């Protein structure tokens, strides 16, 4: 039987904070057993190393995916998509996620002043991996860690 899976964005750059997402996975690990975690954009060497360390330390089932694979192919049948963006979410595959019915948690570290209430509610999670971990676990119906 296939495990339920979530997808996270591993890009760590001036527009995404993939290593912060990996830290959230470390902190959420206890609640993520029995779930496969697909990491998009996992081929940058620091991210590949971080993912390997995550797997070794937590025993989580991790599937690293290179940037060359289309997001649609990774997102299919996912239970959740998680990313941390720096300024905005324009570079993220949110359209594909919506088309496939995949719920999204995508906090933005420095949202525009006119950002909506949903974006403002995620401000803490954009900088605090423990808060992001709590959001992920709640979205999956798992017991959330205390933030």
């Amino acid at each position, binding site marked *: 039987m296939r495990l339920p899976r979530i997808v996270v964005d591993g890009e*760590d*750059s001036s527009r995404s904070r993939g*290593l*912060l997402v990996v830290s*959230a996975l*470390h902190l959420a690990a206890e609640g993520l057993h029995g779930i496969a975690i697909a990491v998009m954009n996992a081929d940058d060497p620091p991210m590949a190393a971080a993912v390997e360390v995550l797997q070794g330390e937590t025993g989580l089932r991790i599937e690293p995916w290179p940037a060359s694979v289309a997001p649609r192919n990774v997102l299919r049948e996912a239970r959740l998509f998680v990313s941390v963006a720096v300024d905005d979410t324009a570079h993220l595959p949110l359209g594909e996620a919506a088309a496939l019915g995949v719920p999204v948690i995508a906090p933005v570290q420095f949202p525009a002043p006119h950002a909506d209430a949903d974006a403002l509610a995620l401000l803490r999670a954009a*900088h605090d*991996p423990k808060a992001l971990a709590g959001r992920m676990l709640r979205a999956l119906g798992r017991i959330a860690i205390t933030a």
Partner: protein
Amino acid sequence: MTRRPILVVAMPDSIHTARWLRMLPPDVGPLVLLPTARRDPIPDLGRLWPIRDESDLAAMPADAIGLWSAEPTGEEATPDALPPPIGFTNRRTILRGATIARAIRALRPTLLHTMEIQQAGYAALAAMPRLGEERPPWLVSNWGSDIFLYGRLAAHRPILRAVMTEADAVLNECDRDAALVRELGFRGRLLPPQPASGGADIAALPRLDALLPPSARRLILVKGYHGWAGRALHALSAIHLAAPALRGFAIRLLLAPSAVREMAQRLAEHDGLDIAAEPWMADHDAVLRRMGDARMMVACGISDGIGTTLLEAMVLGAFPVVSNTGAAAEWLAPGRDGLILPPHDVAALAAAISRAATDDALVDAAASRNRATVDRRWDLRRNAVSAAAGYAEVIGAGRRAAAA
């Protein structure tokens, strides 16, 4: 007759290499540095003397360090079939095992000392099958993350096992790694741990009573490395969360890449903090003066040994706020002399930074204890004696094994 040298394979542009080589007493014998890459040697190495063969060695002045300078030929052009360090796409720019074998055949060193494993140590491993009876004893220095991080990576673990099987002696930076090298199959001599840099001339550094007490200082230094081991962007998110406690401080980032500098700019605009990246300083005395102006030093990362920045912070009164993935807990009492946290818990790091920024008694009380610890354990003269004794022990054991 020329004394046979000690061949040290190390990064030529590293302050650790320079400090180690310049720390060693002259009676250990002539030293020849075989650089791991064609980069300019750091000026702190002092006088260097080109070495191509034993006749160059015979002519080398007593105050010089030899620098292997023979042009590569033949098989030295081919990179070793070994994994590169993280951040390198291949080993094309890294020293070859064939070059180490050639230098050993030419100079007949009493000891091969590789400082750092993924460049120097792997190249020495590739040299071993090329050597017969001329193979000297091999001392492996394990810097910071060489085993603690790389030992968890599938591409590197078998290579580390092979290094540990071949090595005659290992010099770790911290007690933590003793068990790790044994797990990798090492059965040789484990020398007493020492920082990668060996030691510092503590007596030449300013005394604490010549500096402002930490509680009166308004500078916060943050290690800027981000990527394969560093997590400076985590530290900056912590600073964002702690911003209300940090107004009135100058926050400066050390050795920050562009993504970290950009984030600092955003924090300056968004949070109204005085935060910026510091330019790289060639003058290490200036680096130390800056540390002596700092109230705290923040470092976040998933792997380290005993970082030199931490030791410099401890000696000059800057309160350490660092990750638990290094060896800080072997040097200071957590919660009393520094705050040590998991690298993934940014909220806890934010709380620690806030505390160090506001608790004057905490940072002032830690300063003298941290100074005393580093005085005792990072002193150039004491550690030089220990390093020379380690060399003598490994060389002596090699001679006895060869005679048996």
